[in-house]
């Protein structure tokens, strides 16, 4: 009898232990095993190289072999000596001011008009979204031709008698950057418009009815009901577009590669050339780090304004 009790106590102990073990396995090991594969891939591709960029930005490194530690030398050269960096940064700021105004105005006005329309609303939404789904290489090649002074729109206008219309937009140092921004915007603004439209459609109808009763005209309605109604979306997209405008690369590379004579150089094309044409990987990492700093500053500015009570 006593013996039997002992046995069962031992048995209970082992089942208890294995129960705790199974619990641990089911509640912690299995769930993390499910997360691990994607986590590891993301760490290898994004987190690891991002952290090592901090180190490489302090080195002279060709990408092959040992990196030579040179302290803040790269940053000193960037800030005080490199005229290309200065021009690229200025172009990024031009790009930023273009993209936080032109596509936003275009998208807000269009979404405002489209939100009032019933018939054909889906058709317009879909059609205006189409440029956004096209690959950048195609958009660039279409517009390279349309902007050409010989076969493009300007060239045809000149042939038809409009004097001086055959401008080489992409070959002109004053116009190249704006022409690229125009092309990127042609591709991008429909996305913004669809986002704003979705936000506008979730504004309660009573607000518009109330505004009508108060005798508001269309413009007052738009300014006092629609804009406040979509403010969270608007503010978030302003922040994201500002951050993205420091990363721009594809359209500049495809249309001018930063030319003519560096007129459309941006930080992205500069990093590409430094890292993959000149093999100045340490210097390129330093530029990438300053670019990230600008992104952090923009996000910091928005967070600060929100803390100060701005409703964004």
């Amino acid at each position, binding site marked *: 009898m006593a013996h039997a009790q002992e046995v069962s106590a031992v048995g209970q102990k082992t089942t208890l232990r294995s129960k705790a073990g199974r619990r641990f396995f*089911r509640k*912690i090991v*299995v*769930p*993390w095993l*499910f*997360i691990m594969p*994607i*986590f590891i891939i*993301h760490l290898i*591709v*994004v987190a*690891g*190289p*991002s952290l090592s*960029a901090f180190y*490489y930005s302090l080195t002279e490194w060709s990408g092959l072999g040992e990196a030579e530690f040179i302290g803040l030398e790269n940053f000193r050269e960037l800030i005080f000596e490199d005229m290309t960096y200065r021009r690229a940064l200025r172009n990024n700021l031009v790009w930023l001011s273009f993209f936080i105004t032109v596509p936003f105005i275009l998208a807000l006005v269009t979404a405002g*008009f*489209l939100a*009032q*329309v019933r018939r054909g609303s889906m058709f317009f*939404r879909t*059609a*205006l*979204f*189409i440029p956004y*789904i096209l*690959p*950048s*290489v*195609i958009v660039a090649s*279409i517009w*390279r*031709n*349309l902007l050409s002074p010989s076969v493009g729109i300007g*060239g*045809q206008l000149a042939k038809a008698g409009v004097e001086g219309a055959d401008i080489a937009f992409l070959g002109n140092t004053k116009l190249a950057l704006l022409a690229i921004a125009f092309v990127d915007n*042609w591709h*991008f603004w*429909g*996305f913004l418009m669809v986002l704003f439209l979705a936000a506008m459609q979730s504004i309660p109808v009573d607000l518009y009815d109330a505004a009508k009763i108060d005798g508001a005209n269309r413009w007052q309605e738009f300014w006092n009901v629609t804009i406040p109604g979509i403010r969270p979306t608007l503010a978030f997209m302003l922040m*994201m577009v500002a951050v*993205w405008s*420091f*990363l*721009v690369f594809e359209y500049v590379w*495809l249309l001018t590669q930063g030319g003519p004579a560096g007129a459309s150089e941006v930080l992205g094309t500069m*990093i*590409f050339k430094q*890292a*993959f044409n000149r093999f100045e*990987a340490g210097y390129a*990492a330093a*530029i*990438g*780090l300053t*670019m*990230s700093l600008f*992104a952090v500053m923009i*996000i910091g500015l928005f967070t600060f304004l929100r803390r100060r009570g701005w409703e964004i």
Partner: protein
Amino acid sequence: MNLLGQRRQTSLAPNYIILGLLLLFALCPLVILGFNSVKSNIDIAQNPLGPPRALHLENYPTAWEVGGFANTTLNSVYLVVSTVAGVLMLGGLAAYSLARLNPPGSNLFMLYMLGGSTLPIWLFLVPLFFLWRTLGLYNTLYGLTIIYIALNSPLAVFLLRSYMLSLPADFEDAARVDGANELQVFFRIVLPLSWPGFLTVGLVVALGVWSEFQIALIFVNDPKLFPVTTSYYQFTSRFTRDWALTSAAAVMMILPILIIFLALQRRFIEGLTQGGLRA
């Protein structure tokens, strides 16, 4: 009421005029592209923007041949299929764990993914390039696939997680009572129930990979391995003057996207606007 209704109707005319003009702005370049894809080069030189005078459909087979599309399409299809499969599989497992199993520390993981998805790509691209070269992953399609999977995983994890959270857990509980393990629950219950979420993510990721240029430009250097985008870029720089051929090639590249987009546009727009934070 009648008066109001009438006023509304007449006041919509300016809306349609402006929307119509914007429609022309958005679609005219594509119509011109379609026109030029079936013109001869002589026709283009005289009449670059108008409709074709005669149909030159042979531009298409010529562009397919000269542009090496047989090979590059295969490369792109490989990239799209393996990235979508990898993202859905691995992202789906992680999303399921986050939505249902709530392991300790999962909030930190989500915070990490959110932060990682806002990092500027130029911060890690340069060190990643040299890491890939050291690991022998540079100039390989699977090396490119791994990068695409990583960059698309935050979108997949967040979108799939929120989709799974919107589903009732009853079926999963029933399956567990019947003795199914978590992997079986995932494959037999969760996957079949959340297919609309998987489809949305799959479409967005497929579109992104098919159109991707910047990373492919940096990480693949061998023309035999070029996807359609970098190959098209090379093609247009070799045949700058041949607008007919490059237009035909462009139409071949975007036609599949356009057809799938128009067929499934609600899902596309939903996926791209909810999580597709790409410029």
